[in-house]
């Protein structure tokens, strides 16, 4: 069952202190080797690669797609690495979870898979549309930008938390738990 599986996963979690120190050290290692951690550019690079694969000339004619490289670089490889890292960590700790609808979502919006998938898709659309206007996401602009003491990182961080908190409160208004 969902609940038991989630509770088991929660018990096995790493503390936020250990995780925070490890992630800070990892970003230090990244900056010492090639550059700061970042994710959202990879979606643009992959879009370009896919379009090229289907014979579209958009990657060379579009003013935004033509900015990004047409080949894999260090930064792009972070993204597939994260999928593998998530998989391996879950596999090794027995926390693989193939659920479609999160329990909390279910308690508010019901069991419907199409409904949850539509929301997840729309959310992803907004995430990348917004991130690419701003020039980065939670990783590149807040985690890395904040650590690099970039003004843009702190302003973006304040914006996403303000908007995220308001949206979450609206989505779960009148919900006790």
């Amino acid at each position, binding site marked *: 069952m969902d609940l038991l599986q989630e509770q088991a996963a929660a018990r096995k979690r790493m503390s936020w202190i250990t995780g925070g120190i490890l992630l*800070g050290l990892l970003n230090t290692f990244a900056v010492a080797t090639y550059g700061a951690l970042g994710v959202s550019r990879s979606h643009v690079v992959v879009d370009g690669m896919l379009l090229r694969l289907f014979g579209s000339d958009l990657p060379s004619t579009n003013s935004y797609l033509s*900015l990004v490289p047409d080949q894999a670089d260090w930064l792009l490889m972070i993204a597939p690495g994260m999928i593998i890292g998530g998989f391996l960590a879950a596999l090794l700790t027995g926390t693989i979870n193939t659920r479609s609808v999160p329990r909390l979502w279910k308690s508010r919006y019901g069991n419907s898979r199409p409904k949850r998938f539509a929301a997840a898709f729309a959310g992803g659309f907004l995430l990348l549309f917004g991130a690419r206007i701003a020039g980065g996401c939670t990783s590149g602009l807040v985690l890395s930008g904040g*650590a690099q003491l970039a003004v843009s990182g702190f*302003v973006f961080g304040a914006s996403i938390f303000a908007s995220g908190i308001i949206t979450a409160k609206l989505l779960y208004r009148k919900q006790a738990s």
Partner: protein
Amino acid sequence: MIAATITLAQAGSDTVGIVGGTDARALILGLLTGVAFGAILQRVGASSYALIVNMLRLRDLTVMKFFFLAIAVGSLGMYFVNSVGTAHIGIAPFYPLGIIVGGIIFGAGWALSGYCPGTSLVAMGEGKVDAAFTVLGGFAGALALALTWDWIKPVLVDPLNYGSQSIPDILGVAPLLTATVVAAIIVAFVMYLDHAGTGRRPTAGKTQDHPART
């Protein structure tokens, strides 16, 4: 000191050109760095829908504390490396209109999906099916931005574009000293959040507003 490594770009520090090289060593190290990044996020629970949404509902700040602490440690680490050797630091450009509007759109997507671009990849790796739809939505959103870039850039990115702006440059203080002070402020804030105990632990002697949070 930072100037030598600053990446100036109109569209975001990481958008233009190749980052970190395309040779085998760069690709393999990038992949391994991503594996470690994904594993840490998974172990802490940052790829959990409930932990992210309950953070945004201000009910369980575990992920927020984790994330802020990582910024503090990263800042100290990066500017320490910068002071003793070469750090590949790239200060993202500051254009408040695009940063704030982009951030508001991003925040809505964050609460709706329960993931951010990175954690959606991790959650997909863990097997969570809805996260794969967030990743797909991300590809669509990035493409939509590319197709509308010519309209968005002159309105949100070009006006009030101050280029790379970092706190130590503005204050005229040495970067490592600034990083130390900022890290201390962040750690103090995280300790305050932990002490205030929003979520999880009931506060002794106080009535609890939300009895069932987990």
